[in-house]
């Protein structure tokens, strides 16, 4: 089998030949460029990361690729925004069921500088992320991008959807107002209606038979430690498969038939 040629580098990344007669970089700009290149080279010589990076970033995409193909990246950026704002919200939040949780959310929303804005990004960003995930799923479905050999990526995507829903469900309790409390009561009881395992699942979620002090800390731990780690790991695998298998052309593009190939075959 002949080896496929390496994916081409964009022109801006190709090394530019120096002017004839010069050997060393002269201008400060050229020297700064040289320093950057040698620093990157130092890392690359010890890790060989550039090959993998080139393989991930400079892929060939099919003709007809359009804005709908950005919905997956948009979901990922929504997740990154949630992760960053969430980390900083955790600096003020206190998972205390006896009143401290509500008070800490009230404080960070009303008193902390930019608190309402950062909390708003997290609160509205969660809705944006769910919407983007569903649009991404619809794009994949209607473009037929779930078909062979991409079925496994569809399954991982479904797992990611469920994890996103888990994030929404567990995050809803954290402000600990009346809406959070009753929504969580109803949500846990919906889980409890599953036959056989339902009662044990709802006891596990609540941390006991009644909604109590551990319910909030349990939801907080699931929301900020357990599920984000799983989400990030699954997203890494999802992206690996995208890079590995490539993207599909939109369904309205017909495959181009090479006339020469046809004459040879006939």
């Amino acid at each position, binding site marked *: 089998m002949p080896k496929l040629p390496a994916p081409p580098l964009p022109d801006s990344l190709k090394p530019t030949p120096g002017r004839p007669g010069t050997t060393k970089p002269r201008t400060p700009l050229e020297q700064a460029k040289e320093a950057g290149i040698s620093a990157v080279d130092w890392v690359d010589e010890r890790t060989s990361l550039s090959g993998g990076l080139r393989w991930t970033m400079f892929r060939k995409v099919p003709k007809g690729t359009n804005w709908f193909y950005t919905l997956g990246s948009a979901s990922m950026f929504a997740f990154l925004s949630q992760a960053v704002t969430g980390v900083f919200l955790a600096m003020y939040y206190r998972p205390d*069921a006896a009143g401290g949780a509500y008070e800490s959310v009230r404080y960070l929303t009303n008193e902390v500088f930019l608190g309402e804005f950062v909390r708003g990004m997290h609160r509205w960003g969660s809705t944006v992320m769910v919407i983007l995930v569903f649009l991404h799923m619809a794009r994949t479905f209607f473009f037929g991008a779930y078909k062979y050999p991409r079925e496994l990526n569809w399954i991982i995507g479904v797992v990611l959807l469920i994890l996103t829903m888990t994030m929404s469900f567990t995050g809803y309790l954290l402000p600990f107002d009346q809406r959070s409390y009753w929504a969580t009561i109803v949500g846990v009881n919906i889980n*409890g209606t599953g036959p056989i395992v339902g009662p044990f699942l709802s006891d596990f979620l609540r941390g*006991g038979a009644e909604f109590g002090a551990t319910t909030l800390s349990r939801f907080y731990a699931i929301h900020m430690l357990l599920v984000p780690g799983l989400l990030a790991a699954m997203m890494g695998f999802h992206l690996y498969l995208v890079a590995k298998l490539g993207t599909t052309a939109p369904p309205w593009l017909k495959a181009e038939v090479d006339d020469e190939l046809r004459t040879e075959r006939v």
Partner: protein
Amino acid sequence: MATARKTPKSKYTADRKIPGAFEGETVTRRRFMVGTVNVAGAVAVMGFTLPVLGFAMGTPLFERPEPIWTPVGAPDEFPTDTYVPRVITVVQGVGEIGKTTTYVRARNDDPEIDPPDSFPDDVPFVAVSTRCMHLGCPVRFVDAAKRFICPCHGGVYDFAGVPTGGPPVRPLDRFYTRIRNNQLEVGPRYSVNGELNRFPSYRDPGQDLDGIGQYLYPGRFSTPQR
């Protein structure tokens, strides 16, 4: 007919001319070491995953907290033909969210409302939980209609707490009652099915207890100590 071109390898290491083989030895040392390392790794991983799983699930699934008895008033405060609301504590140490409202009345003489054998330990009082049996919203008692009504999805219960409309799947839960020092005390929760038969291991809302429901929604591993 095809015959095996190669004679199959002997299962004894000694026959395969492996240096230092023991008499009757069948597992090579390389295989033995690989297996040992894999088993050791599995044991090490289980050494921290099993304890944390037990930690996360053991107490919620297997332990029941001590029952809490809350005095709600003298026995003669409670009529037989309507309910009196009282606030009791079901979870301690979590402030307001550990409290719930219960509607209390004395036993009604009408066997349609209170079947004769529906009173645990023959304490003639009924303390009805306000937790809706659809998904757990708080119901309220409307005296004019003599009905319990849920604000969320329109569940309606009659005077005894048996559902007469909407999505609830079983009658409202009740609480055990007892009389101490001339005070009526309200204690742990229990569930009832459509015939008002008592299930000491109470179920969550949405879990049917009639017919196949009582098997689809098993009780907890331990019931409250009375």
